[in-house]
């Protein structure tokens, strides 16, 4: 089984003018993805645009592997034009996904905008055990709402403009939630585990809250990426770590090791991440 394979486009459905929903069927046996991992998809048959685009693994069904995408630039604009039957090159699953939940903690699943693609498999896995916080700029940015409502009764929706759910950011809603949980104490907070994916300012804010309240958790980060396998060193992110320590072998299960000092180094989003323990990332 190779992580570099060809796949056929099964569906490519526009969700609205800015977002699409893609299903691909690998033409060979491929490794199973884990929540939080990602794939790189070729968007062009020519050399322009040149690089594959990274997309979070959204869901796997008997039909194939599914992705949610936002049309942001030339590459995703071309992707929007994919028709069923087209064959594309794919690399994945890549990176380290979300680690398994520790103990009996209650997961807080936090998604901003297209970050829902990465968080969705966790919502499927935890169902009503988790509180879900999902925010977007406006109602058009909220994707798969019906599916989400079917999966979770603890869904907290927000939009910046108030066009759906509470008005405000997902961080505002999370802050309110934590403040108003009447029984909340430091001990109770430790019973939560945060899993977050979204824009950088959101991840930064969520991380601050988590560190303040002593909630452990993970964020899925994003950076410009070329190779997806740790070779180009393009997707660097400032992180805490020991300069002298060898990097952990890729794709091992669990065991990220404790951070024993706070020296900051560059880690690679594609290989060391995209999911990092909250305390590991050094935000600007």
């Amino acid at each position, binding site marked *: 089984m*190779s*992580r*570099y394979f060809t796949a056929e486009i099964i569906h490519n459905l526009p969700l609205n003018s800015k977002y699409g929903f893609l299903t691909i069927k690998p033409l060979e046996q491929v490794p199973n993805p884990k929540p939080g991992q990602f794939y790189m998809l*070729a968007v062009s048959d020519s*050399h*322009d*645009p*040149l*690089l*594959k685009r990274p997309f979070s693994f959204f869901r796997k069904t008997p039909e194939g592997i599914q992705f949610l995408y936002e049309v942001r630039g030339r*590459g995703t604009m071309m992707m929007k034009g994919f028709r069923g039957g087209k064959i594309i*090159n794919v*690399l994945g699953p890549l990176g380290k996904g979300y680690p398994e939940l520790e103990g009996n903690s209650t997961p807080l699943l936090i998604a901003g905008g297209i970050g829902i693609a990465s968080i969705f498999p966790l919502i499927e896995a935890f169902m009503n055990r988790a509180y879900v916080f999902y925010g977007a700029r406006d109602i058009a940015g909220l994707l798969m709402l019906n599916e989400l409502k079917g999966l979770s009764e603890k869904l907290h929706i927000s939009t910046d403009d108030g066009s759906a759910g509470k008005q405000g950011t997902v961080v505002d809603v999370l802050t309110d939630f934590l403040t108003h949980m009447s029984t909340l104490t430091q001990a109770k907070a430790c019973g939560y585990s945060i899993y977050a994916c979204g824009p950088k300012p959101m991840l930064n804010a969520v991380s601050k809250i988590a560190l303040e309240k002593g909630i452990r958790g993970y964020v899925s980060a994003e*950076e*410009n*990426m*070329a*190779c*997806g*396998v*740790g*070779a*180009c*060193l*393009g*997707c*660097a*992110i*400032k992180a805490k770590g020991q*300069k002298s320590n*060898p990097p952990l072998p890729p794709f091992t299960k669990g065991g990220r090791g404790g951070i024993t000092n706070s020296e900051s*180094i*560059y880690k690679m989003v594609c290989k060391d991440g995209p999911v990092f323990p909250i305390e590991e990332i050094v935000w600007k």
Partner: protein
Amino acid sequence: MTKQSLEFMNLSITIGHLKLKNPVMTASGTFGYGEEYSEFFDLNRLGAIVVKGISLKPMEGNPPPRICETPSGMLNSIGLQNVGLKRFLKEKLPYLKKFDTPLIVNILANTIHGYVRLSKALDDAGVDGIELNVSCPNVKKGGISFGTDKKTLARLISKVRQTVKSAVLITKLSPNVSNIQELSKIAEDSGSDAVSLINTIPAMAIDIETRKPRLANITGGLSGPAIKPVAVRMVWESYNTVKIPIIGMGGIMNSDDAIEFMLAGATAVAVGTANFVNPKATVTIIEGIEEYLRRKSIKDVKEIIGGLNAAQSHHNLNN
């Protein structure tokens, strides 16, 4: 095509005293330390592996964003992030030595003394080749400043030449010069066994919405198909000037591109950015070269080196 005629096909070439089973190698900085790509194909198939540039001390690299895409290419400003000599020898070299593929280590230092120390340590450790990076556009000290100053370049290569006993010595040249012939000649005259060209071309891109540079370092190096014609021209000019082998690189995506470089005078080629697009690019290129030779009934790949049909071509094959 019958099996018998396949057996007669010779893909091997030589760089100095180093024999390569085929002319396709990886370009430094695009193939990690080999391990990153070992799951995709058998590294024994490569002509040579050229690993990410090594410095005496580990280097942290530049802040992100480090890369961005441009038309038919990409910009990078990694800033030579690497594990440093000590860790390379301890953690990376033993793995790379397992393969029946020559290992070429790209090196970079701030001083001539630094290059000499690195070369000696790597030569002693038994690497097959040393590639002097004197052309990185992304670090302030060292790198490109060595590659564009003729006197310094000559002194640097001579000093390293005196140090290196068994590894072949390759000088990687910058395209950021007005006269590539002159620098190729300096490399040859100073004792380099081969030249490799081109490194990335200094370049930049701006996000017009935010007015911010697309790279944190503002400028970076352009690679990919966008630079190929520049690279082919420089290989051709260099080929008409020096007798030592040329390792051609710059935007090689497929075997057609590789053959184009060889026709322009490259003895070997290095595949860089294409590895990011297709992790099996090198193997596909090796197979494509075989296919071309078969189609043209050419039994030895060396026959196409400098095989450009041009009136001014007067260079003798040097292999």
